[in-house]
């Protein structure tokens, strides 16, 4: 895809612009106060930068929904590779391109944007790697459950897609850290599976959360959602194929 036209790079420029705007908003919010919700401005900026750099892994989209909608799921099932492996490998390939043309430049531009890109500590970096892997597992499981939902509901994907994106963005803490939510909302939002997508790894990276607790929570959701997803997939498999056909 990328080889066809350099104009694709503009998409990444737009992401950079969005990041710069969000960083400016946070600076304004924290201008009059040192700390909020246990976070200082430096942590929030690092948190936002990393959310921008890792936008794809922190909100996994395998393309299953589109595949179902277009009926391409049938041809996927004829490939000599598991369905999850097929979608995940394709998704990972897209990430590599995004990482090279967007994430890496964002990381390199961090000093220019006035953001410290480094993790809170060496241990935080190590835990973060594990947390990110668990976030991807939870993300993929949620994506497959979402695919099952559109097949069961037999509805148009664009209707659900808008809702899913908006809800996930809010509840995962990818834009506004959950710790900054009013009325202590962030505390219970953290327990939802969406919290395992972005909030947990980003908190660990910035040293804003207790790594073992967050990792345990992520591991729970990863296990529970994978088991649930497998069951749902078995039940709705036929329906998914007929929906896609």
């Amino acid at each position, binding site marked *: 895809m*990328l*080889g*066809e*036209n*350099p104009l694709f790079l503009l998409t990444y420029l737009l992401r950079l612009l969005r990041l710069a705007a969000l960083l400016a908003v946070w600076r304004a919010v924290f201008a009059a106060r040192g700390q909020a919700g246990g976070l200082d401005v430096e942590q929030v900026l690092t948190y936002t930068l990393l959310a921008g750099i890792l936008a794809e892994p922190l909100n996994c989209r395998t393309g299953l929904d589109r595949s179902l909608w277009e009926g391409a799921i049938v041809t996927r099932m004829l490939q000599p590779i598991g369905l999850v492996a097929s979608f995940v490998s394709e998704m990972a390939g897209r990430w590599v391109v995004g990482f090279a043309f967007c994430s890496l430049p964002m990381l390199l531009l961090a000093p220019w944007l006035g953001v410290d890109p480094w993790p809170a500590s060496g241990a935080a970096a190590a835990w973060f790697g594990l947390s990110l892997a668990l976030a991807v597992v939870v993300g993929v499981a949620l994506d497959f459950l979402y695919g099952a939902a559109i097949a069961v509901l037999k509805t*148009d994907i664009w209707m659900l897609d808008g809702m899913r994106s908006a809800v996930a963005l809010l509840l995962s803490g990818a834009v506004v850290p959950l710790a900054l939510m009013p009325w202590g909302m962030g505390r219970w939002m953290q327990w939802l599976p969406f919290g395992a997508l972005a909030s947990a790894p980003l908190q660990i990276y910035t040293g804003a959360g207790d790594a073992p607790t967050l990792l345990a929570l992520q591991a729970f959701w990863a296990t529970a959602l994978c088991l649930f997803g497998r069951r749902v997939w078995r039940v709705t498999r036929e329906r998914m194929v007929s929906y896609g056909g």
Partner: protein
Amino acid sequence: MHRSDRADIPASGIVVECRAVCKTFRQRQPSERPRDVLRNLLHPRFRTVEALRDVSFTVNRGEVVAYAGPNGAGKSTTIKLLSGMLAPTSGSVRVLGIDPVAERTRYVGRIGVVFGQRTELWWDHPVAASYEWKRVVWDIPRERFERMCGVAREILGVGETWNTLARELSLGQRMRADLGMAMLHEPEILFLDEPTLGLDVLAKRSMTRLVRQLSATGSVTVMVTSHDMNELEQLAGRVIFIESGSLAYDGDFAGLRREFGDLRRLVLETDDATAPTLPGAELVGSQGMRHEYRLRGAGADVAALSAGAGEQCRVLDVETHRAPIDEVIAGIYEHWGRQRPTGTA
């Protein structure tokens, strides 16, 4: 079919006129090698495809013309040019005396287009809703609309799917509904681009019936492309053949057979499982004691061939028949394939 409200339409004359039409496209040729990514980005390679080269023909009112050719020959490009979707690179296209691109809105109200791979129906709505949509957008008078809906129901059997969502129609039902919809405004010319692609025999038959009925009125001109040559031969009195963008033949089917080889078949039933050898005839195959030969040209002497066979075995029965038109076409394609230099578009 009544056309009382279209009294202004002349009964004869040229309605489609293509003069020296050329159409070229540029096609990107990206390399798949990872080391060429930068070159693909900054200095991509292109090739020029000549979709049509110096194509000229005319079509008279009321004619049913088959527009045929192998894949990539330029059939769909021609239909797009005639529908006002594309402008020729050079040459001129005039249909009903109108430049289809320059006066598109006036023009498309007088034609109907059906693409076999595309549907004009609204996917999540019943067929009836799509027809109503067409009535409003095309500004079709109520009387004509009701009458043409009747035609669609009667000839194409659209009535049975009238309240079915388009997305739930079978391919055949969808195509029939699409054809019926294309007819609602009583177009003067109907362009059908592979309308029977993927259809079963019954669906093809109802399509054919409608086109025949239209041509019987003499006031509707039909240009139809298809790969099913038998179907085209049944439908059209004239065939225009296009190959690699150039006009290769324009005439009737009998002439096509004459020009590209009047393939006939000789079938001998003998008392021997071994097929007799016949000079001037090529053995196609044997089934038990029934042997089929391919004869080339109208001049083959069947009596002499039968006599020759009689010298080798006892001939119980002799049959001759024309080879299917598909076989003539396959011969033409093979011939063109051999002539075409390798590496061209």
